């Protein structure tokens, strides 16, 4: 009865969507659109968990899907957009690299992941593609963290990384026990809130949110 999920490759389609929403982050100029990309990414992630829940009929996956949606899909983006509005600064991203170069590098990252994970113990789980895609998303998140100037894009990169690794863990283990899942999400949420507090303080102290100005401490 639930064969349609397999037949239509629903899970593969969604995970490709997750990868694309990470890749598109390379080209976005405005902070608001970056946050929208994150929302898109998180919603796809929770929809993917939801479909796997239908496929396996596992109750705790339904809860996990709902929790992912509530925290990553709604709470964290709302908080981030509030901070962006509060900043009232130039809302452009100002990357160190040009769009085309960073797109190329993202493409290379995806290729590296696909060639290096072609075989071996890690090709398991419900789909052969999900694990590769999740690692690629995590690497793109890390790449975004390194090459962007604004504090908030670092947070976004971190969140993309976390989404990618969450997906990796999910594809390996079909989710952790629910209490653990809850704890990790809570920790992540607290972390983002504290980072938000520090963004506000950086803005106050350095009168910009450029991380280039954080050069007081050396040696």
């Amino acid at each position, binding site marked *: 009865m639930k064969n349609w999920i397999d037949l239509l490759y629903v899970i593969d389609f969604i995970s490709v969507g997750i990868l694309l929403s990470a890749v598109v982050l390379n080209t976005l100029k405005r902070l608001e659109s970056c946050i929208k990309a994150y929302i898109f990414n998180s919603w796809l992630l929770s929809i993917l968990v939801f479909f796997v829940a239908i496929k396996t009929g596992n109750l705790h996956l339904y809860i996990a899907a709902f929790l992912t949606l509530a925290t990553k899909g709604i709470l964290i983006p709302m908080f981030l957009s509030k901070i962006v509005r509060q900043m009232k600064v130039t809302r452009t991203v100002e990357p160190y690299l040009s769009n085309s170069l960073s797109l190329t590098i993202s493409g290379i990252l995806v290729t590296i992941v696909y060639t290096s994970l072609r075989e071996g113990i890690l090709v398991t789980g419900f789909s052969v593609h999900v694990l590769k895609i999740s690692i690629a998303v995590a690497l793109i998140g890390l790449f975004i963290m390194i090459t962007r100037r604004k504090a908030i894009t670092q947070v976004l990169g971190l969140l993309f990384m976390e989404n990618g690794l969450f997906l990796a863990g999910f594809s390996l283990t079909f989710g952790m026990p629910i209490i653990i899942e809850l704890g990790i999400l809570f920790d992540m949420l*607290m*972390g983002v809130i504290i980072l938000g507090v*520090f963004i506000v303080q950086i803005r106050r102290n350095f009168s910009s949110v450029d991380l280039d100005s954080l050069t007081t401490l050396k040696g």
Partner: protein
Amino acid sequence: MIGILLLIPLITAVLCYFSNNRRVIEYINLTGAAIIAVASIFPISASLSTPIFFFRGMFFMDALSAYILSIVMFVSVAAAIYSVDYMGSEFKEGLIGIKEIRYFYALLYLFIFTMVLAVVSNNIAIFWMAIESTTIVSSLLVGFYKDRASVEAAWKYIILCTVSLVFGLLGIFIIYYASASVLVGEGTLNWTELREITHDMNPKTIKLAFLFILVGYGAKAGFAPIHNWLPDAHSQAPTPVSALLSGVLIKCSFFGIIRFVILGNESLESSYCSHLLLIFGLLSMGIATAFILLQNNYKRLLAYSSIEHIGIIAIGMGIGGFWGIYGALLHMLNHAIVKPLLFFTTGRVRLKYHTTEIGKVKGAITVLPVAGTVMLLAALAIAGSPPFNIFLSEYTILKAAIDGGNWITFALFIAFSTIIFGGVLRHFGGMAFGKPNIDHEHEKEKNGDNKMSLIVIVVMVAIMLVLGLYIPGFLNEMLNNSVKVITGE
């Protein structure tokens, strides 16, 4: 017992947050510290021979966690008592207000709570959460003064540690996956259960998981080359927090690595984990050596010295064998005594001289007779000169290196520690001796204010001197039992 131990710091934190009077907060702080110290004795002594469990096996304590917990407790209580004077004098100088005092003590006890949670957790995912919470809570303490430097330090700290901990989480997922494939169906995250099934797991999977875990917790433990957050965070935090960060937090994180080394040794050939630890340990020592020589800020110098000592601990674990592990564990305790002592005494120097530059401090012994002398003694100890405790544990590790025939490790260890010896003593000698460059005569009558911190300092010096000469029977038994947990005999 474990539940009570977790509850006390939480209650103290809440009480501190909702009090409005500095005196009241300080009394709550001291009572809380005393109660924690007493309450921790029971689980520690109970768990020395047989492990104790709590809450469906999610928390547990064996001899190893009892040993780490006693280190955590010792430094936490010392830092809590020291805070009274340190924050009190900042309050009197008008640097902070009552709101910040409330905030500081509440965060301090939350920080202690998260560290205790990490040490007593059996579930490796709860351990991860606890370590991530220590990052979140202590980054607020690092950014406590809200000025440029401390906000920058806190930002670097939370970003770097969270990124690497996310990788650590992937390692935990992989372990869970491996356990699910062994147990067929529902996997397990409890360390005690994992230990029984690790030898059935695929060694390649364990290798991969261990790498992720090592990077994840290694950044938090201060391994070079992922140590960049450490000097910033340790130098910008308020002094009692620096003592906690450097005295116990990095060891809590290393404790997580030890747990996975134990798992790794069950299924892999033992050289895999130990080679990785040796590489990270020697690299940390080497990088710390360079930065210690060139340093001009004494709080940063102490931070780099922490990197060196976490390197030494990793080397001890990496050499392995009874004496290597014994030396590493003993070194954890010794470093947890001497480094907070140095932070406490230099904290008093900072309150007096209002600078953290090495060149601007002269004649600390004349200005602060007790703290200055103790600072010099502790600097001698941290540099590794006999007859202090650090020398004893470094000697034990070196002996293990010779016994195991690790001549490269031995040679590099000796070379680095000799250079560091010179560097540390040159800097601290310059600070302690010479003609005082501040006017100190009219400030002498105020010294009566700082009785509490002096008591803490004197007690810690006494322990440092005793441990340099001999190891008491109960400590020896604790160490022996902990080594047995690690080697699995």
